[in-house]
């Protein structure tokens, strides 16, 4: 889109004598706009396109981080990946995290947006409160929540014990780390969905509600028959963005349940990729795993594209 506006301008200025476009280019007038995007394209090519292509190549080799000579091994990494129970477990953990985290993040995002949208005096306060956690760095979020989750002396256990609910153990999060990470993530990233919903709510014209009022609709009917249908496109967007974000779970899980000092045995998928590649040195295998996740995300993005474009028609 930016090229769209840049090119006509380039066409008009390039005819002037002191044009910065290289003289050897036969079609001089086309070059200026490209210089503007070059910094971005260069960074994008070096840090996105090239690593992606290299990763695809490595996934067919036994590339090791140690720098020993690379050997072409065909589909071995891919076959190993699909037969690796630890990889599949971690992929399932990522899926399970997505299943657990997406519904609350979408539903609560909407609920809080409705709340903040309705509030008159406290609107600014609610907007701030719901969005503020989102701007906190992940390292700080996980540290604070880990303190609260501490089995001995943590906030949760302290009050659970005091109210006679769970004694000295955090009953809800005993079995594994997943529940704890989901709760933390919901608190932390809710603000983004909240913001999308809030923006969408503000685009719904007040006249629609006025008309409904005249027809005698109560607030539940207005929510059900006006607000939610008009938010459909936003909901689709939020769900897909959320699915993709959740599938990319790594930071919180690594910091809360993955580091060297922790004894959690489960991994999420990116963590497994990280461990295979950077800790275990197997760049080739890690590349194949990355492409499996890439494929999953592409599928979801395509589904979103289909859904959204159909609505547009």
């Amino acid at each position, binding site marked *: 889109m930016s090229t769209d506006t840049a090119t006509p301008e380039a066409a008009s200025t390039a005819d002037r004598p002191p044009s910065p476009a290289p003289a050897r280019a036969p079609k001089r007038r*086309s070059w200026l706009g490209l210089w503007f995007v070059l910094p971005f394209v260069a960074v994008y090519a070096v840090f996105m396109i090239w690593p992606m292509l290299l990763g695809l190549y490595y996934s067919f080799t036994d590339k090791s981080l140690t720098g020993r000579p690379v050997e072409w091994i065909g589909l071995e990494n891919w076959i190993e990946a699909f037969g690796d129970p630890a990889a599949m477990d971690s992929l399932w953990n990522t899926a399970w995290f997505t299943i657990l985290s997406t519904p609350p993040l979408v539903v609560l995002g909407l609920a809080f947006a409705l709340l903040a949208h309705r509030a008159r005096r406290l609107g600014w306060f609610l907007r701030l409160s719901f969005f503020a956690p989102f701007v906190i760095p992940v390292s700080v979020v996980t540290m604070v929540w880990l303190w609260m989750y501490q089995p001995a002396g943590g906030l949760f256990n302290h009050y659970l014990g005091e109210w006679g609910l769970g004694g000295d153990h955090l009953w809800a999060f005993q079995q594994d780390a997943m529940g704890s990470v989901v709760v933390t993530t919901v608190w932390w990233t809710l603000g983004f969905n909240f913001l999308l919903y809030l923006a969408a709510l503000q685009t719904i014209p007040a006249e629609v509600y006025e008309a409904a009022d005249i027809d005698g609709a109560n607030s539940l009917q207005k929510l059900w028959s006006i607000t939610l249908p008009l938010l459909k496109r936003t909901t689709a967007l939020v769900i897909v963005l959320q699915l993709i974000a959740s599938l990319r779970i790594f930071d919180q899980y690594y910091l809360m349940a993955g*580091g060297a000092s922790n004894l959690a045995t489960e991994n999420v998928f990116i963590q497994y990729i990280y461990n295979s590649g950077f800790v275990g040195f*197997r760049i080739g295998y890690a590349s194949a795993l990355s492409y499996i996740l890439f494929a999953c995300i592409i599928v979801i993005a395509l589904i979103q594209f289909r859904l959204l474009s159909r609505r547009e028609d």
Partner: protein
Amino acid sequence: MRNPPSPPGALSRRALLTGTAAAAGLGLAGCGSITGGIGGGTTVKQWNLLAGSDGAIMTTMHEQFMEETGVDLKATTFAWGTPFYTKLVMGASGGNAADVATIHLSRLQSLSPSTLLDAIEIDELVDAGLDPEDFTPDIWDRCFSDDRLYAVPLDTHALVNYYNRTICEQAGVLNPDGTLLETHGVEEYFDLLRAVKDVTGEYGTSLDTNAGWRQFWAWYRQQDGEWIFHEDGFELDDDKALNAIDTMWRMADEGLCPRISDGGATAANFENGAGGLVQVGNWEITRFRAFNEAQGLDFSMTEMPDFFGNRRTQGDCHAFVLPRHNSWNADVRKATVDYVAFMLQNSFQWGAGAGHTPAYLPVTDSPEYQDLEPNAEYSGVVDNVQFDPDVWFAGSAARLPDEVGRVFAGVYSGANDPETALAAIKDVAQTMVELPNPID
């Protein structure tokens, strides 16, 4: 969204790549010169993993080094274990890591020295004032790979046994001279723990239940147990392993040690008297001394107790390596080797402050060091120290101790009985044996 028509004279792929390469070249050219030294002084970059209390001692030594030599030393401490090694390997594989780094000697082979480290010439060391004769042969030999020297050892460190003298005296487990009674065998030691537990009301020993690998390896090696790895399998002595695991299980079951305790809690439980003893690394001495100064803690240290007929213990060596460089500046290289020599020659404070046993014999043989307390009380660890198995996924903070340690955490917590745990660690080991070896 429709695509806008492509602008006239679209950028060809070749032109794009040329431009990209030029831009990348500009960016990278900026990085190379950092090491080169600014304003005449030479800068040496050092990476270490000493995130514990020994890191403070190292920082003090670094200040002395800079004062004496005028070299600007830029030391960076990374989180201990996997984060450090990941950083080191990634830096070295790009040829842009630090000039010198600390490692655990047991990890040398797993760092693929021939591709990720730069070999050190003996002549360089001699020029800097070191001599191969200054090290015990068994440690010195571990610094080689394919007949080339890749590491210079700084110390030996191991699990030792700290005891709180106030509590142990009340429990009646001290000798008249104030040292801990020597016990023989698991039962005698458990009796000692029971006596201490009666005094503390909580635990006998405040073990680190996350560090089960270290305890297992010490107690397994006390029985002469071997863990030998082959191409497609390994040999582990089930009975001896089971004895070692059973010791953990019973200790936790009887409440002689905590069920769940990480490094921080372990040290805290010893400091606040919840446990009268603790088997933990000698490096915690700095922390306990600081606590003694702040709130009073009369403690001393001795070797790992005799569980199975001797006092072998798990341990390792810190060593200096030179990560692979794309190119060395001669001044920086010399300053780097000088730095290594300085640290070794001044390692008396490393031993006195951080509790490690220096690897540099002129220091350990000095009468000054021989009289150092409490180091003298556990000086035998150097002969009793047991290195981790010799395989690419073993060594400090490597996958084997990490994953096996998780199983043992379950033994202490009561979730894994000894037979289950044995089966689980064999599973873990078999999985790792079957991994394609990324080093060779």
